[in-house]
């Protein structure tokens, strides 16, 4: 236990020092140096100071744009679908960044159509476009970032109709230091933080990242069947008889049904048989817990099974549960 905590502390420390190094000494910092020479002449000791050298740290213009979203699953004809990016000021001075986007990129199967507006701040931090997000207007609300600070940005596109499953469309976000961009080492005299010079860093003051939409139409089919076993060994649906329901869920198409959840109501005048819920023959507890399913009691009782990201390749998923007739 103690060992674990120590390890965790060490990790935090190393993380912190990495952050400190990312941006470096702040732009405008004055660095002075004075040396002393000590000597003796004729038996008396003398200390002679040197002149003082003064360096001013220039602003290094650097930025890093990273894609934060996995390829986004879309359907042909979808509108206003977002890709999430992060723009980080990796320079050493406060800097405003100009943002732009393009969806006209080669090497993909289709060009997503930029919405208008096409760039948003992920104001509410949801990771997707929502009502609370602020549209970006170039030159008007360019994000001003302190060193090491990032802002989350969404770029938004419509997906053309009539695309084949599996088609890939790409879209790119670019950020540029508003002071200027250029080959690493390019100097912008007097234009840095606090009137210091600005110098293009290794990024040249600009960075971009490209996100991806994947057209993935998928449909789920489920087939439900029931078998009755009465108290006398027959199959009469009489009070006391037990009904075994089987639901077979399968995905078709090229896509993935994200976080598929199957809810099935317990029919009126029947009661769920405790401990009878199974997924692919494996028993699931009735409680809401880490396993994939549960029985939901209450006025409208039901069973619920979470199938995760279901694809055709995963094959058919078989859910079984039992009820008794009251």
């Amino acid at each position: 236990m103690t060992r674990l905590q120590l390890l965790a502390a060490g990790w935090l420390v190393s993380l912190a020092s990495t952050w400190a190094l990312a941006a470096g000494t702040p732009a405008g910092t004055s660095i002075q140096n004075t040396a002393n020479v000590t000597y003796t002449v004729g038996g008396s000791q003398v200390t002679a100071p040197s002149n003082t050298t003064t360096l001013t740290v220039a602003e290094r213009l650097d930025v890093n744009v990273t894609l934060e979203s996995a390829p986004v699953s879309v359907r042909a004809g979808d509108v206003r679908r977002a890709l999430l990016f992060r723009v980080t000021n990796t320079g050493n001075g406060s800097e405003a960044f100009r943002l732009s986007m393009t969806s006209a990129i080669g090497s993909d199967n289709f060009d997503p159509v930029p919405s208008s507006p096409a760039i948003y701040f992920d104001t509410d931090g949801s990771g997707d476009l929502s009502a609370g997000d602020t549209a970006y207007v170039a030159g008007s609300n360019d994000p001003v970032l302190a060193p090491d600070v990032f802002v989350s940005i969404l770029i938004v596109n419509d997906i053309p109709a009539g695309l084949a499953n599996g088609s890939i469309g790409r879209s790119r976000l670019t950020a540029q230091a508003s002071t200027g961009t250029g080959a690493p080492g390019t100097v912008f005299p007097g234009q840095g933080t606090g009137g210091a010079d600005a110098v293009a860093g290794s990024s040249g003051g600009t960075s971009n990242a490209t996100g991806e939409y994947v057209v993935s139409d998928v449909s789920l089919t489920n087939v439900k069947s029931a078998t009755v076993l009465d108290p006398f060994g027959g199959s009469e649906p009489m009070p006391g008889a037990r009904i075994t329901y089987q639901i077979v869920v399968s995905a078709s198409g090229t896509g993935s049904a994200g976080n598929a959840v199957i809810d099935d109501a317990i029919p009126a005048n029947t009661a769920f048989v405790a401990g009878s819920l199974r997924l692919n023959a494996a028993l699931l507890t009735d409680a809401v817990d880490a396993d994939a399913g549960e029985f939901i009691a209450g006025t409208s009782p039901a069973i619920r099974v979470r199938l995760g990201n279901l694809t055709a390749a995963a094959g058919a998923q078989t859910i079984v549960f039992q009820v008794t007739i009251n």
Partner: protein
Amino acid sequence: MTIAKGWLMALAACVLANAAAAADKGCIVVQNTAEVEQTTTDAKGVKTVKLVPAVKVVPGDTVIYTVTFRNVCTKPAENVSVDNPVPEHMAYIADSAVGPNTDVSFSIDGGYNFGKPEALRKKDADGTERAARPGEYTNIRWVMRHPLAAGAEAYARFRAVLE
């Protein structure tokens, strides 16, 4: 015209020399410079590296500090040592401290104690002792092995990288 200009320059040099002498009543005149390496490539692709005054530096740049000291008296100066702090925000680069005929030692406590690199130990927050990293050196000391003769000049130099 040319004569007048030359005279003016001579006068200016005189004033500078007087100012230096007035500022330092002792026998050793000390000059400190901060420079950076500038690499130029000529048409044939040959690279030339020269030292130019450090005007603007950005994190990651290496600065070369050179202390030049000259004995302006007629007697030799004895027990000459140069102390130079590594400025804040700068990290000393291992093995870069040089000075002809000097013994170099380092401090990690702001100049109270000096030692050879192998003698400098740091304790981490968890109590583990380890060798101090060059970037943790706070001060550098050069001690001349021989007196500095009258009229002689020497230098002490180190490199540091801007954090």
